[in-house]
């Protein structure tokens, strides 16, 4: 859980953005650009799992914008009456990360007996997407039925977030993991292996302004900025795909 302390001077308006943990690299840059275009505005971020952020907002936490890593938690926020209509601002893809001495070079290699594979837990979007992808790959002739079961058999741990999956692969304690492409930017010590895009669920990031926001116009402006060509370019720099 991240704790941010803000000292807002009288002249500054603070825009509070609750954003999914996977956005922790891209969003600060978006924030800086937004602040440059809006003098007197300071953007403050709270990064955490989408599910935790939604729970905090439902319990009364104060924010202006909510950016979720998947539709499910935005839907929950909507049914909890927390947000207005949401828009999609980015997409992401799942990839395999593997240690250089892991012997993993293709998705097929994930079925190797004795391989130590780490995934995100099912409750975390990344984990759910990984399982959905593996199920779809089961029906692909290239992988065959039994693929998902064989891969799942190799799972030694279900981590609570993507960073932990990457950490265990980086440390060499796990041979491979499944994370978002955006998480691999800058990690040169691990191999990145694509998973078939046709088998992946649409990983779409929705964003919405909170009904209880104290700066609704600013919130709308921020969302518009993220969807603008400049905002999209920044997101792509960090490994995200374009808004659908």
């Amino acid at each position, binding site marked *: 859980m991240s704790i941010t302390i803000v000292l807002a001077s009288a002249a500054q308006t603070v825009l509070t953005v609750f954003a999914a943990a996977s956005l922790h690299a891209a969003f600060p840059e978006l924030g800086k650009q937004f602040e440059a275009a809006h003098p007197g505005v300071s953007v403050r971020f709270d990064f955490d799992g989408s599910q935790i952020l939604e*729970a905090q907002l439902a319990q009364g936490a104060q924010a202006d914008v909510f950016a979720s890593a998947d539709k499910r938690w935005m839907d929950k926020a909507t049914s909890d009456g927390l947000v207005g209509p949401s828009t999609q601002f980015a997409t992401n893809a799942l990839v395999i990360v593997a240690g250089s001495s892991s012997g993993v070079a293709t998705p097929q290699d994930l079925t190797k007996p004795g391989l130590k594979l*780490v995934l995100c837990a099912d409750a975390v979007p990344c984990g759910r997407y990984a399982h959905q992808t593996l199920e779809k790959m089961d029906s692909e002739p290239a992988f065959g039925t039994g693929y998902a079961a064989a891969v799942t058999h190799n799972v030694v741990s279900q981590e609570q977030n993507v960073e932990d999956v990457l950490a265990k692969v980086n440390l060499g304690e796990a041979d491979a993991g499944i994370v978002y492409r955006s998480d691999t930017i800058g990690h040169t010590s691990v191999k990145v292996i694509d998973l078939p895009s046709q088998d992946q669920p649409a990983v779409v990031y929705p964003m919405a302004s909170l009904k209880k926001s104290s700066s609704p116009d600013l919130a709308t402006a921020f969302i518009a900025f993220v969807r603008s060509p400049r905002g999209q370019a920044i997101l792509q720099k960090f490994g995200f795909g374009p808004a659908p």
Partner: protein
Amino acid sequence: MRHPSAALRDSTVSAVGIALAVIFVLFIVVALAALVLRVSPQAFGAALRSQIVLQALWLSLKTSALCALIIAVCGTPLAALLTRPFRGSHALETLVTLPVVLPPVVGGLALLLAFGRMGLLGRQLDMFGIHLPFTTAAVVLAQTFVAAPLYIAVAKSAFARVDPNLVDAAATLRASRTYTFVRVIIPPALPALAGGLALAWARALGEFGATITFAGNLPGVTQTMPIAVYMSAQTDLQPAITVAVVLMVLSYGALLVVRRAAGGTGLAP
């Protein structure tokens, strides 16, 4: 004959003391009640019958019991050693207390970097076919790492409080060191030792950060109750609260039993 104002001051101070104690108790009770009140008896019963909960419960009990055994067997001699100061004993005592100060996740990371596949002792362990991360054994080690200092501190103070005259008398009667330790030092210290072990066991039962970092999270292998609660909370708070209350009720019951058995000598913490 006490001056009336002294008596008044005395009763005011006690009243303030009692009020502060009551406020603190309420602080704990209200927080725990907030959880318990959210769980209906039916939900409680259903949780006790769920596969995931039973698996996590059994794993937690197994691992924390083994952990308590290891702590008792290894911690007791260490605490006895630390009772008489020797050169370096203070440094040693501070060292073994350190895990308590470390954030649990950092403790888990330390264990991973030491005993993991790529760790300091990774190659050596591999030679003996010992692979620790992602195993139930790793759960026990993580729990032991964080809980042992609690027992050692209590045990040391319990041993230090044993009447030295008894020990001297045993020496003059030519009792061996082992006999003295087992028959003269341990019995009076036993209630405090039991209380300290209960404390360490409770800490081991509630351990999360070190466990999930070193041992990982896999149902049936490394998913202990606290991890199950946390994972459940990610999806839906209500089942998580229910499972948390199961853990609470279990721990409360067990701690109560141990304290009763330890006896109310006031030495138990």
